[in-house]
């Protein structure tokens, strides 16, 4: 009984739990990126660890968060056009956590996280609307026919795997030819009417992302807002195993959530994604 109460009281403060999960994610993520700009990262890690080990309870400065911020900044300076988009989100989140250590106002921290999350999802909507390849359905049409999306569902339609493989092989052969010859390949549809399905799916994606962004903007604590957002995260994970980005979005969701059951759901998604990242499964 005491154990249950302990767990319940621990989950009351989602900001604390979210920060712990963010630290865990950052540890794994930074480790995976360690080989890039290693020369600059080694001193940061060594000095950070020494300071943290000796002064963690003697200073009010969040040493570990500053270390992560510097490590993320090194990657941004070194590989601005190569880092994943969730690298930028992580940078903003760590910045918000550091500010929180000084101002101690939960309201400001939650506002930072809420607005950053809304900006990320809305930017994604804007990018999709501005891309003719996306709104026409051509993007989904090509990547689905090449077997890059819905791999999980393709297992249930074995012939679709064969068609996708044949399309990929044709594309590989095309890439070996001189493009000046103007050769074209014809993609075979892995399922009937893929062209129309792709168009519908493209607009459905835009609609769901827009609704999720608006829900988080207008009602950031509402259960329905989080259900929509969690549905979006799970939907993306089933479409393509984007474990890195989805765990970052889920940590943001957790920071805003007040419903214990949904907090637990966020935690399962985050830890599940982190486990997959450690196993080097998915895209991180």
């Amino acid at each position, binding site marked *: 009984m005491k154990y249950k109460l302990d767990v319940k009281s621990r989950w009351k403060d989602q900001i604390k739990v979210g920060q712990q999960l963010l630290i865990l994610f950052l540890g794994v993520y930074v480790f995976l990126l360690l080989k890039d700009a290693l020369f600059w990262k080694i001193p940061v890690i060594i000095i950070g660890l020494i300071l943290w080990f000796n002064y963690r309870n003697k200073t009010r400065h969040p040493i570990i968060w500053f270390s992560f911020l510097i490590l993320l900044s090194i990657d941004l300076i070194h590989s601005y056009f190569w880092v994943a988009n969730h690298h*930028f989100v992580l940078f903003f989140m760590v910045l918000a956590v550091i500010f929180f250590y000084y101002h101690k106002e939960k309201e400001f921290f939650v506002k930072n996280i809420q607005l*950053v999350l809304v*900006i990320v999802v809305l930017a994604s909507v804007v990018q999709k609307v*501005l891309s003719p*390849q996306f709104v026409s359905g051509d993007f989904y049409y090509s*990547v689905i026919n090449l077997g890059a999306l819905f791999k999980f569902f393709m297992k249930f339609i074995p012939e679709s795997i064969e068609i996708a493989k044949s399309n990929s092989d044709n594309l590989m052969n095309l890439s070996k030819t001189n493009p000046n010859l103007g050769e074209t*390949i014809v*993609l075979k549809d892995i399922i009937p009417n893929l062209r129309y399905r*792709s168009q519908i799916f493209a607009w459905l994606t835009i609609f769901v992302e827009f609704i999720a962004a608006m829900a988080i903007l207008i009602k950031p604590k509402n259960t329905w807002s989080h259900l929509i957002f969690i549905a979006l995260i799970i939907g993306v994970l089933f479409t393509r195993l984007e474990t890195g980005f989805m765990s970052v979005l889920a940590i943001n969701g957790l920071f805003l959530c007040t419903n214990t059951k949904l907090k637990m759901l966020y935690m399962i998604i985050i830890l599940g994604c982190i486990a997959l990242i450690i196993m080097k499964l998915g895209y991180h």
Partner: protein
Amino acid sequence: MKNVTKIVLLKYGIPVFAIIIVAVQLFLVKTKDLSRWKGGGYGMYTEIHYAYNQIYIPGFSVDSLVKDNEQMQSTFGRLLVMPNSDNLEKVAKLVLETTHVDSINVQIWKPIVNSKEGTYTRVLSHEIQVKKSSL
């Protein structure tokens, strides 16, 4: 700092920073042909991945040029993610400097998909001809 300014900064400083990054990325997409996939604009899965762009240099194998050469990999990689004239020129100059040819033609091709006809083809995005004497 006045209290109101401080509150506004603490509440909206980071989100405004995030908006600036997105705006810069969108600007680079428009003016420098940056891929929507990169640069912090959250445009993944909105267009065909930049890895499908193709650098073509008549008389050369791109795979052989970039193999075990970090500078080539980085310069060619930049051209794939941002296929514009400036990056094309950088690639052309680098290849001219490291090989024994007097002139070079570098092309960058982009994939085009037509779901109506079910076709996948490539269109020329940029092309450059550089002579060693002009370096």
